[in-house]
């Protein structure tokens, strides 16, 4: 893992809470704990995958990293510089270095602009030198589109082609960091593979660093070097891709992995989590996963949960290479076998 360079983006203690108001007078009724105390660093040339279920805070984390929304607490360092308190004007030159690819290629492209205008817009916004039209054509070609289609509109393209437009636009200013928020979730499998391959080849060619957000564990495995698993606003496990899939240590990660349907031979035992993700307005005490945790239940033979899980918040132990926020991490995935269902 030492093949990657110095950290490009580092966030520390990142927290975002959204106020919830109710009633006619918009009385403040509480807060959504969207992201809680997230500390991550992404090294140059690396792909960090962030995976989790809806509402776990993965997209909010991405938006915080780009300073599209202001954090409630915590710091963001980009390329060695603290950008947490920069003003919008001060952010401008930094923005060239960080771009985003969105999930929905239908709503993230302006239907009234031609492909050429969409991909060329970053050049005009940042008033760059050079022949923008030529650059746009080169970008289109590099991203697998026909440069002849310069004057077409987004509706004339299929979902996969539109996502290529989104990638080309993100690439226009040669950024250092691209945050991909579920870039292939809306695409058919055969097209999804094309886009993943495109992102991978662009990464080595342009020396890009990716933060790749997805709910799809197989996509995350394919593209990521390191992976952060999030649950209810917190990172619960952080390690390299191989260790996460081979020896998941957080019971949540293990349950997630076992829930993914597979095409391989034979039926296997599945850990089916009961219930839904709790509300982020009033997250459970202690470990947020304890009400659904299969390991906690095993430890007490189904009689409630251990006291530490219920009362104390487990934190990632930094610097161990395989960080897990759990009081009773799994030694092996087989540990949960007794609670798995055939």
């Amino acid at each position, binding site marked *: 893992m030492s093949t990657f360079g110095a950290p490009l983006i580092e966030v520390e203690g990142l927290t975002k809470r959204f106020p919830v108001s109710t009633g006619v007078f918009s009385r403040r009724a509480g807060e959504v704990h969207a992201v809680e105390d997230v500390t991550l660093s992404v090294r140059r040339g690396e792909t960090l995958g962030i995976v989790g*279920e*809806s509402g776990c805070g993965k997209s909010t984390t991405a938006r915080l990293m780009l300073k599209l929304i202001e954090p409630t607490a915590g710091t963001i360092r980009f390329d060695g510089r603290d950008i947490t308190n920069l003003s919008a004007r001060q952010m401008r030159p930094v923005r060239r270095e960080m771009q985003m690819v969105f999930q929905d290629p239908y709503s993230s492209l302006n239907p009234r602009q031609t492909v050429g205008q969409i991909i060329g817009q970053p050049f005009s916004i940042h008033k760059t030198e050079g022949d923008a039209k030529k650059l746009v054509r080169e970008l289109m070609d590099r991203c697998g589109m026909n440069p002849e289609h310069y004057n077409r509109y987004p509706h004339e393209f*299929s*979902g*996969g*082609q539109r996502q290529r437009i989104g990638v080309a636009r993100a690439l226009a200013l040669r950024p250092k960091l691209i945050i991909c928020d579920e870039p292939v979730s809306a695409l*058919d*499998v*055969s*097209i*999804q*593979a*094309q886009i*993943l*391959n495109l992102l991978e080849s662009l990464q080595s060619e342009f020396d890009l660093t990716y933060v790749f957000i997805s*709910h*799809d*564990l*197989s*996509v995350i*495995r*394919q*593209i990521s070097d390191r992976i952060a698993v999030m649950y209810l606003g917190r990172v619960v496990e952080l390690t390299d*891709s191989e260790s996460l*899939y081979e020896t998941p240590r957080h019971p949540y990660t293990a*349950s*997630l*992995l076992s*829930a*993914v*349907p*597979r*095409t*391989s*031979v034979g*039926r296997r035992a*599945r850990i*089916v*989590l009961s219930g*839904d*993700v709790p509300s982020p307005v009033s997250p459970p005490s202690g470990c947020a996963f304890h009400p659904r945790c299969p390991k906690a239940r095993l430890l007490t033979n189904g009689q409630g949960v251990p006291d530490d899980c219920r009362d104390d918040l487990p934190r990632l132990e930094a610097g161990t290479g395989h960080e897990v926020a759990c009081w009773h991490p799994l030694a092996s995935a087989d540990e949960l076998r007794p609670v798995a*269902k055939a």
Partner: protein
Amino acid sequence: MSGDLLLDVRDLTVQFPTQDGIVNAVSGLSFTLRRGETLGIVGESGSGKSVTNLAILGLLNSKHSQVGGEILLHGRDLLKASQSELRDVRGKDVAMIFQDPFACLHPMYRVGSQIAEAVRAHLDVSKSVAFERAVEVLDAVGIPNARARAKDYPHQFSGGMRQRAMIAMALVHNPSVLIADEPTTALDVTVQAQILDLIDKVKRDFDIGVILVTHDLGVVAETAQTVMVMYAGRAVEHGPAREVFDSPQHPYTWGLLESMPSVESKVAHLHAIEGSPPSVIHLPTGCAFHPRCPHRFDRCMTARPPLEQMEGGHADACHLDTDAKRRLWAERQRIRLGVGA
């Protein structure tokens, strides 16, 4: 499959005339569904999987579509049935659950009363009797404290619970066929596992046949007994699920399987099927898949391969002979796994 025959679709063809030409949504599709069977229909967007289901339910507007062939439900042809006869079938003998449980429940009515309304659509019973039935089915699909939750509004339900409520609504009249169109696509993976388990349980408890439409091959592999792979409105491969996943025969099926990333391993280079699905107005000549197929030869461009039965009920529509297919698939797997030739 030994259960009695519920549904027998023969040579189904659906066309939509448009200003730009005729859309061939489904062409010459035949399949059967038996009691206790889950048939998985897989294919990408535009392959005709959803239109097939709309045809079975008689939901295609006859003004805008031309439907040919036969759809035999318990031996009776639904395509010859009148609107009122169809209304008697829909929601009663054939029930459907949709992809988006958020869009399928009315936000201003209580969940229980919406299900009760479905009861009263086919049965002349009082509201209170219908409500009792709603509570009963909500309980059957694993909604805890069903009587109290029946009085909740949809926004008080989570995504997984809404999908459970939709399944409950589909079950009120003890249907014999349940059509599930991408039932778990909008759900998280842990909730997806719960819903797939539930559909399987419902199939056994109510002794029904299930048609599961999805783009996720993993979902099909884990829940279906029979698989039909569709491409550009036709079945290109059809057979017992284990057979199809263990020894896939059609290059399109190979492409689909290879383009799926896996949670079990990272592959050196993800294989992607080149190009994109064809326009269903201007279908390619011969085999519709030939422009994207790496193994095409002259005949593929001129003659359309028929869906040919092999032993074990496994069928595929490809001009390659069995030996060539075995060799090519073995080779492609070697390349995928990065094993030296």
